[in-house]
Structure formats: C-alpha cells, structure tokens
C-alpha cells in the first residue's frame, strides 16, 4: 500500500510541476504543439510511472528512480556562454562528421552556427522548426510516438520544448555522417527532455550518429524521443553510442516509419550508464522495406540496460532482422523484449530475431522475452534467445596455445560482441567502436574526453 501511495506521489509531483511551469513550457510554441500536451497529460495520469506492474516495463522498474528524484528542470535553455563546437572540434581527418550539438535537450544555436550542410538539408532547433516549418512538423509530430501507448512518450510529449529537427530532401545523398551529440551539463542534478523529428525524403541517403555525453558528475535523467520518417527508397543508418556515467538514467525512444523500398540499419551500442531503457519501434509501412536492427550492451557494477523493440510488419514483402547481445558483469542486470507483429495484410514477411547473452558472474541477471504476434499465414519468422557463460572449451583451447586466461576471456568476449559491431557500415566508425568496446571489456576507461571521437586517440 505504501508503494502505491509513493507512486501516486511521483505522478502528482510531476503533474504539479507541469502545472506550475505551464507558461514556461508552452511559451513561444504554436498552439497545436501545446494541444498535444492535453492527451499526454491524461495518458500520464492513467499510466503513471512505469514499473514492474507495467507489462512492457516489467524488467525496468522506474518507480524508484522517479520517487527519489527532485531534479531541476530547465524550461529555458541554460546559458553557458561557451561555443561548444570549439570544445568539441573534431580533428580526426578520416572521420569527418556534420556536428550537431544539443545541450541539456536544447538545440544549441551558438555552437551550431558554423556547421555547413549540403544544399537543401535543414538542421535546426525543433522549436524553431515548429514555427518556421510548421507544415512539415505538424504533419509528423506525435504521429509515430503515441502518448496512449507508452508512459515515457506521454512524459516526453508533456514536457517537450526543443530538440533537433532534420530534413533531408528527396534524392540527396549525404556523404558525411550527421553526428548528434547530446551534452549534459549542470551544477545540480538535472532532468532533461529532448524531442527530435527527422524526415528523410524519397531516395535520400544519410547516416546518423547519436552520441551521449555527460560533462559533469551530477545525476541526470534524460528522456529523449526521436520520430523518424523514412521516405520511399531512402537508405538510413542510425548508430547510437551510449556512454554516460553510471549516475545517469537514459530513457530513450526511437520511432521509425518506413515507406516502400526503404532500408534501415540501426545499432545501439551501450558502454556506460546507470539505468538505460531503449524503446525502439519500427513500422514497415511500405512493401519491400527492410530493417536491420542491432544492439550491444556491456554492463557491470549495478548498471541496468533494457532494450525493448517493437517491429510492426504492416505491408507485404518486408524484411526485418534483429540481433541483440549483452555481456553482463558484476551484479548488472539486463532486459530484452523483442516484439514482432505481423499484420493480416503483410504476407511474405520475413522477420527474424536473436538475443544472445553472456553472464560473467553469478550475480548478473538477464531477462529476455520474445513476443511474436503473427496474423498472416504466409510468413517466415524466427526467434532465439540464449543466456550462457564463456565457453570453457574455447577458453582452454586458447590457453593451450599460450594465451593467458584473462586475455583469452577478452578475446572470446570481443568475438561475441563483434558480430554486432560487424553490422556497423561506416568503416571508420566501426574501428572507433571496436576500440571503445575493446577498452570497455578490458575495464579501461572508455569515456570520451571531449566527444565520442576522442576515443580514437
């Protein structure tokens, strides 16, 4: 009973916080954005903070996190008076990216002013785009991330004020990856809301990287949500590198709709972070669309990493493939829920899913759950999950060739992880991630110095 009361407590506190800051939250935004907060508010009241009793969150109980936080929220951008693009200047010549800096959820105008994009590409503050590109934003905002379906989506929509808007015109191929660095910096514990909208036009091609970066040791909760519209025959790669300190909670949602013939690759590499929950929803909403979805999480101490995927095959002849792997050390915990829903009309669907996990200690725990809902007879679907330990025979084989036990273990863990890394299509990035993962497995600090690229040095 006490627990129920506390749960109500967090919901009430957040609701009151919202009411008290309503003017600040809604100020400067078009009415249709603020209108969307009303259903979000009702959905949040109904669903509350997700915990063990919420079916989709049974492996990640967020009630305690929210009960205990009374973090600062900034309803206006914090002014650091620093051009972060100088701090983050990227001087790795072989790995050049278009840098997009977001600070505490706010698109940082000052830091981004010097980035030049190919003609026709729009990269700007979502807040600004809501006014200046209202026709585009209004059409897609809140369409994929449905507030009634998910409590984190409801909370995000309730507090959303800014983030990044990216528009890639039809037929444009962007060579350099777009690298969105999400910087958290604050003198006190901070709760951040970030909302992104990305639209890729017909036959466009782009690679995106999401890097998380925490500059300070304070506690952070980062609720970020990205809606992504992929036009016909577009080819999009999305890589996210989660590398924050262990006092941060990263609650993220990525919602993607794919049109006919589009090809998606997405890979979530989790290296550090306290509580990590990644929601991924992909709607295969046009024939012959394909989605290749991967994740790798390396966890230790008391880290918790939970990947929740929901792949909806709406149209026929689509292909989806999921590969998620976890290596869990110490008393870290992990979750994977992979939902595949093949709708009645989606014949000739091919949908595969695999989740393999290695536990390095007796205290580490992994929960894995496939959820296949298939409403069509003419499909190929498979799923498989394993939770195991390092293969002793392989370990002995390596040792018998003169490789010491510790090194042999690392080789086997790296080999296990590499299957996911092999899916990273940008060679330079793959090398960077390879090195990061290797360092991480060795227990060396793999935290980036100034940005995710710094790890290469």
């Amino acid at each position, binding site marked *: 009973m006490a627990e129920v009361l506390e749960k109500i407590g967090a919901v009430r506190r957040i609701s009151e916080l919202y009411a008290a800051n309503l003017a600040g939250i809604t100020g400067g935004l078009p009415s249709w954005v603020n209108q969307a907060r009303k259903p979000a508010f009702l959905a949040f009241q109904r669903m509350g903070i997700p915990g063990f009793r919420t079916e989709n969150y049974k492996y990640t109980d967020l009630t305690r996190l929210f009960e205990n936080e009374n973090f600062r929220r900034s309803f206006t951008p914090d002014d650091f008076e620093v051009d972060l693009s100088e701090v983050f200047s990227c001087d790795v010549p072989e790995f050049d990216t278009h840098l997009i800096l977001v600070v505490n959820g706010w698109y940082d105008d000052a830091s981004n002013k010097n980035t030049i994009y190919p003609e026709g590409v729009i990269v700007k503050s979502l807040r600004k785009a809501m006014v200046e590109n209202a026709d585009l934003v209004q059409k897609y905002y809140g369409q994929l991330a449905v507030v009634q379906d998910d409590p984190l989506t409801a909370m995000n929509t309730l507090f959303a004020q800014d983030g990044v808007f990216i528009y890639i015109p039809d037929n444009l191929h962007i060579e350099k990856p777009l690298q969105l660095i999400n910087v958290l910096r604050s003198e006190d514990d901070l709760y951040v809301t970030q909302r992104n909208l990305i639209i890729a036009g017909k036959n466009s091609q782009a690679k995106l990287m999401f890097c998380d970066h925490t500059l300070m040791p304070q506690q952070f909760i980062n609720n970020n949500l990205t809606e992504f519209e992929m036009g016909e025959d577009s080819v999009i790669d999305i890589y996210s590198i989660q590398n924050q300190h262990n006092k941060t909670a990263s609650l993220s949602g990525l919602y993607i709709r794919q049109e006919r013939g589009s090809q998606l690759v997405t890979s979530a590499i989790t290296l550090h972070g306290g509580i990590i929950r990644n929601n991924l929803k992909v709607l295969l909403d046009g024939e012959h669309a394909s989605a290749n979805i991967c994740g790798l999480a390396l966890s230790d101490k008391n880290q918790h990493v939970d990947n929740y995927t929901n792949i909806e095959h709406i149209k026929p002849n689509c292909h989806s493939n999921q590969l998620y792997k976890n290596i869990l050390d110490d008393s870290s915990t992990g979750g994977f829920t992979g939902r595949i829903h093949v709708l009645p009309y989606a014949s000739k669907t091919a949908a595969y899913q695999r989740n393999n996990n290695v536990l390095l200690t007796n205290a580490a725990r992994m929960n894995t759950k496939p959820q296949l809902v298939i409403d069509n007879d003419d499909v190929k679907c498979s799923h498989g999950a394993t939770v195991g330990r390092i293969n002793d025979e*392989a370990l*002995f*084989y390596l040792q*018998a060739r*003169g*490789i*010491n036990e510790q090194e042999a273990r690392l080789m086997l863990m*790296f080999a296990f992880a*590499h299957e996911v890394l092999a899916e990273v299509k940008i060679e330079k990035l793959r090398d960077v991630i390879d090195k990061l993962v290797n360092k991480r497995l060795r227990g060396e600090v793999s935290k980036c110095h100034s940005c995710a690229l710094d790890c290469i040095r």
Partner: protein
Amino acid sequence: MLVIKDLYAKVEGKDILRGINLTVNAGEVHAIMGPNGSGKSTLANVLAGNTNFEVTHGSITFNGKDIFDMSPDVRAKEGLFLSFQYPVEIPGVSMVNFLKTAVNEHRKYRNEKELSAGDFLKLLREKKAMVQIDSQLTNRSVNEGFSGGEKKKNEIFQMAMLEPTLAILDETDSGLDIDALRIVSNGVNMLKNKNNATILVTHYQRLLDYIVPDFVHVLYEGRIVKSAGKELAFELEEKGYDWIKKELGE
C-alpha cells in the same frame, strides 16, 4: 624432457589413469596406443592442463620443472603443445589475430620482442607453405566451418607456428583421408628435430607408417602395460588388443 611418475587422474569422479610412468627424451617419438577408454586422451589432456581432469597422485616434470605449478598457457609457453582430438570452433576470433596473439605471448615469455605485422605475415606465409594449408583458412575464424581434415591440418599449422619442444598429437589421424594423413604426417616429420619430441596418441598402426616411432607403449585401463620398439605396433595391428589382455591374464 618429460618425466611422468606414478600418475593417477580422475574425470567426473571416475579413475581413468592408474599409475602411469613414462620418460620422453629430446629427439624421440613415442606412440601411445590402446583400446577405447584406456585413458589415452586423458593423459594428453592432463599434460596440457585441462582442468576437467583431476590429478590425484603422481608427478610430471617438463624440462625439470613441475608441470602442476603451471597454468595451461604457461605450459604452452614452456614448449608443450597439444594437437586436439576435437579442435574447438571459435566464431569471431580470426585465425590471424589468434595466431599473432599466441606467437607474441610465446615471444614475450622468452623476453623476445613482439613480431611486427610484416614479420608476422612473413612467418605465416612460410609456415602455411610448409604444412600445405589452404591459404583461405587463415582468413576465417578459428576452426569455424572447417572440415574434419582442415581442423587437423590447422592443428599442425599452429604447431609449426609455435615450434614446441614437446608435441602431443591426440588422435590426429582420426577422420583423415589418405591425402590429408600424408600432409599432416609430412608436417610433423618436417618439424621433428633432435631437440624436440613427439607423443603420438593413436588407435591405429596406420599413422605409424608415416611417422615412425622410436617407442610404442600400450595403455590399458590407465596403465602402460607394454612398451617396445616400433615392431610392437605391427604386432598389435595383427593380433588386436585382445592379445595384450590375454598376456595380462584376463
């Protein structure tokens, strides 16, 4: 080089080795034969340091050092090599990375400088040619998807790379066709010199046509019950193991 005294060992609580005595000197080739379940593979695994096998009594010294003080990797770096009866597939670990790590671990142990990438590749090419291994195999993961013959050839290739002083070949002939057997045997013969020694563990006399042993030992119920020159192998082939059992009065 190798001195085994009164060795007893268990697997999963079952006594397998019951008092093995064996001395191997540099320049010698020993064949250990015996019926199924006599303890041949157990002996090979105990020597290599497989912890699934529990030594309950006895001693093994290798180059004068107590082998039980050494972990499997140290034994390897001291010059002991086990060619596995069933080489393990290790997906994701590339042959090149595996061999480079192994070779350099050996070099570090001997206080030698690690090989540069160029020197390593040179060594790799040289040894590949020597044991006639398909050059594509080194582009793959360790043993992954290799045929039975390829796996055994790969063992000999690794042996060529690491140049052990004592090689223990555990049923290296099983599952090989005649051509592969010849290639594997040639490799072993080429690597043989007066400073190293080989222990061949085998069921059949066939392998001994290619690699001629100086001594043949018959292992039966965990003990060496008969030792003689290479002629013993022919006698075994002719009369079968029952003959030994009869001699023992069983």
